[in-house]
């Protein structure tokens, strides 16, 4: 009988608190669905068997970890908010004669209901939607969609495991709070007198410096290489800056405004400034969280979207020619055999190589220290940011390919730097010192440096003797089989993808036997794996973006609701002392607007400042189309802002209802 009573009471409680509990349960269902789908995809065998599918699944399983961690923190946070609002209710139960263990029993039932509803609806939704999402993913990846419908065993096991854990955690936290509190304290709930916040100037200074530092890094970073190293420093600085400025900076600004009597004692500003001061004290951290989350969503979605849309561009940048062959040429061989094989294959296919590009070179990597390069591998550090790639090309080939008639002395060089800048006047490498005669602004199109994110130098030397000498010295220093030089041959084909693919395969067999160390590449061959990786990132970006948006929405909703309850009394008083309903509404609107859009606007500013450094990062990933990225960013911001505005509209309505219910006049 009494057990029945608690179960019933718990159900009534959930119904009565629907305004705050419904969004929570919906979020639980949504999170369960997303987690199920993510695990389902990362364990799906069909996907694993597809070309590039396993790469893709690595990315997806990473995504499922992100969702798991995020869900734990987020649901825990939201739930603690719910409990805070209900403390008064528990206090009342307590005073009406329910012991704490009885309240705990009710809470256990409530958690049980929420868990059953969330897991049931979430798994059902997940199973239904998993097929849809799977098809969307395959569409993104350009794969054939297999027929059939499947339910994933591992996912069905993983989801309850995670979420039962989360629900248990929230329950324990609630029980702990109930257990520690005294009934009178419970009755009072959250309404302890709020002290006026103090201005923390040191924090404001730290905030401004770190935010400025983060922005500065983004603006001054010129090379993609440096961008890669400094991006995370910039992100952390901006995050620290955001937290400091939202918490301390906002208070400082408001206090300055308040000190300005002419400004502060105006009808429009008076209540707004004082109201904002309290809002910021309570909400600064939450708003900073929203701001950072929004920034993360925007960066993630805009970059993954532009990578996916710009994939053709990326392919073309990464593989500038249809067929590209590079090989070391052993001392007893020449490059002619290779040329002959290629021409034979082309003749078989009745095709002609267009924009034929071939040159000889020496290639090696080394740590650059000033004007000296360390090439001894036992002394080199790969992790160091001073790693550079060097390509030495004879003047003869350079002149031929660029139609120039430049001349060079014995130890003179011309240097072109890609993804980095060479600032020295001399270059010492492998016991030989060269003088820089000319710094080149451009170089003929080639693909040698496309995979290396470090700095690359193209060095034009006097003749093949220098090239061979360098290759030999390098091989001796590191104990390699000496090869006399490297050879590159690349060309375009006026043919469709299938034909190019056939030529590519034939060249592989023809060249591979004579030149076993050769590397043969074609964008056609790489396309599938590109789709798998970039498509996977794209999918993950959108999926996690949706999750983050859901979280942002919920946080905002709860913020407004809780503020509504706090503001209610305040606005009632204001009406009593002679503020009209319209004035109250105006005042509410302006404050709510500021609280709402401050994070979004700040996120927009962050993105604007991050733009230069992100374009450099994308350049590392071979996306150089800045215009495309700009459009994608703008589009993402627009969509996000739209979402945000809709949420604002809905939330503001709830807020007004709370604030104005029960007020007279």
């Amino acid at each position, binding site marked *: 009988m009494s057990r029945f009573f608690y179960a019933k009471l718990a159900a009534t409680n959930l119904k009565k608190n629907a305004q705050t509990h419904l969004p929570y349960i919906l979020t639980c269902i949504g999170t369960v669905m997303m987690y199920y789908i993510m695990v389902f995809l990362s364990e799906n065998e069909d996907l694993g068997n597809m070309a590039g599918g396993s790469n893709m699944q690595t990315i997806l399983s990473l995504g499922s970890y992100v969702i798991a961690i995020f869900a734990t923190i987020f649901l825990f946070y939201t739930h603690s908010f719910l409990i805070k609002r209900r403390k008064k209710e528990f206090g009342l139960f307590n005073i009406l004669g329910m012991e704490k263990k009885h309240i705990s029993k009710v809470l256990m039932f409530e958690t049980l209901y929420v868990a059953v509803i969330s897991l049931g609806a979430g798994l059902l939704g997940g199973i239904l939607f998993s097929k849809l999402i799977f098809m969307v993913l395959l569409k993104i990846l350009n794969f054939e969609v297999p027929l059939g419908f499947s339910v994933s065993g591992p996912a069905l096991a993983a989801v309850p495991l995670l979420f039962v854990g989360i629900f248990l955690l929230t329950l324990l936290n609630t029980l702990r709070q109930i257990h520690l509190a005294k009934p009178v304290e419970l009755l009072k709930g959250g309404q302890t*007198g*709020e*002290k*006026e916040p103090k201005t923390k100037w040191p924090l404001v200074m730290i905030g401004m410096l770190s935010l400025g530092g983060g922005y500065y890094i983004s603006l001054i970073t010129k090379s993609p290489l440096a961008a890669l190293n400094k991006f995370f420093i910039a992100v952390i600085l901006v995050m620290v800056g955001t937290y400091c400025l939202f918490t301390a900076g906002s208070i400082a600004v408001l206090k300055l405004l308040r000190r300005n*009597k*002419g400004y502060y*004692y*105006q*009808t429009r500003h*008076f209540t707004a400034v*004082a*109201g904002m*001061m*309290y809002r910021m004290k309570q909400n600064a951290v939450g708003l900073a969280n929203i701001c950072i989350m929004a920034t993360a969503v925007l960066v993630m979605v805009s970059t993954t979207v532009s990578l996916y849309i710009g994939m053709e561009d990326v392919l073309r940048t990464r593989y500038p020619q249809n067929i590209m062959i590079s090989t070391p040429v052993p001392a007893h061989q020449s490059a002619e055999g290779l040329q002959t094989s290629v021409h034979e294959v082309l003749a078989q296919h009745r095709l002609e190589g267009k924009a034929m590009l071939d040159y000889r070179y020496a290639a090696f990597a080394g740590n650059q220290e000033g004007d000296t390069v360390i090439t001894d591998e036992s002394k080199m550090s790969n992790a160091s940011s001073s790693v550079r790639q060097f390509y030495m090309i004879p003047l003869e080939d350079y002149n031929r390919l660029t139609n120039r008639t430049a001349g060079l002395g014995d130890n003179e060089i011309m240097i072109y730097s890609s993804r980095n800048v060479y600032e020295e006047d001399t270059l010492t490498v492998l016991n030989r010192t060269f003088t820089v005669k000319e710094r080149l602004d451009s170089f003929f199109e080639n693909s040698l440096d496309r995979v290396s994110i470090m700095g690359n130098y193209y060095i034009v030397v006097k003749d093949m003797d220098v090239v061979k000498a360098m290759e030999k010295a390098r091989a001796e220093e590191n104990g390699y089989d000496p090869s006399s030089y490297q050879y590159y041959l690349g060309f375009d084909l006026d043919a469709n993808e299938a034909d190019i693919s056939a030529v590519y395969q034939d060249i592989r067999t023809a060249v591979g036997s004579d030149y076993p160390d050769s590397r043969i590449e074609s964008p056609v061959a790489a396309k599938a794996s590109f789709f798998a990786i970039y498509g996977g990132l794209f999918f993950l970006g959108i999926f996690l973006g949706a999750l983050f948006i859901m979280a942002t929405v919920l946080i905002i909703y709860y913020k407004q609701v809780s503020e509504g309850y706090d503001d209610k009394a*305040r606005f009632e*008083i*204001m*009406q*009593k*002392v*002679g*503020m*009209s*309903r*319209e*004035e109250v509404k105006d005042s509410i609107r302006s404050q709510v607007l500021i609280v709402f859009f401050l994070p979004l606007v700040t996120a927009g500013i962050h993105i604007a400042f991050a733009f230069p450094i992100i374009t450099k990062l994308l350049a590392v990933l071979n996306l150089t189309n800045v215009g495309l990225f700009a459009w994608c960013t703008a589009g993402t911001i627009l969509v996000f802002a739209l979402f945000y505005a809709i949420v604002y509209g809905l939330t503001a309505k709830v807020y007004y209802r709370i604030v104005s219910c029960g007020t*007279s*006049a």
Partner: protein
Amino acid sequence: MTILDVNNLKKVYTTRFGGSHVQALSNVSFSVEQGEYVAIMGESGSGKTTLLNILASLDKPTSGEVLLKGKRLSTIKEKEISSFRRENLGFVFQDFNLLDTFSLQDNIFLPLVLSGKSYEEMSWRLQPIARKLGIEDILAQYPYEVSGGQKQRCAVARALITNPQLILADEPTGSLDSQAAEGLLRLFKEINQDGQTLLMVTHSVKAASHAKRVLFIKDGEVFHQLYKAGMSDEAMYQKISDTLITMATGGARHE
């Protein structure tokens, strides 16, 4: 000169779907002269608060009218009602109704700021009031930092600063200890001696005994009234008590 005229006021509350009617005021008429200090007494549920809300133009009567300095409240437009209230009425509440977000000084300034007064004028107006109420030293503090008596004095200052025609006080001593209540009542008397008209709704015989005239409300009507005239506070106290006992035991109605 008559400041407030209340004629045949009637208020009927209807539940949301028109199911049942509750008559809060059935027929209330009285008037308040300039410089008067009137207390309205009655048991819980006698319609005191309804009456005060109507006088404050926070609520509308079902029938009857209220005239403030000859102006009919019902003729004031919805848009102007707030500024009318601000300029002509001052309020003192049982639970002070001070905003925690403002310092005491800003709380007192609130109605003036809403009327668009300059800071100079506001502080010039505040000085004599603050001195009189003895709150000069706590102006920079916040409501949660001071005692109930101090809070109520600030609320009085907020009511006075607009130079209202009439101050309406709703159980002003209700949340105060006896000493603070005594202080506040003394203050009301002083303010009244300076010429301020006061109308106070109260339960407390003690509070009512300070007023110049006491109106008794029962079942939504003015049941009886007492004039203090030359009486001492103690004699008035006794008289009010007697009246209340008569009312409670169902005595006949007389003016």
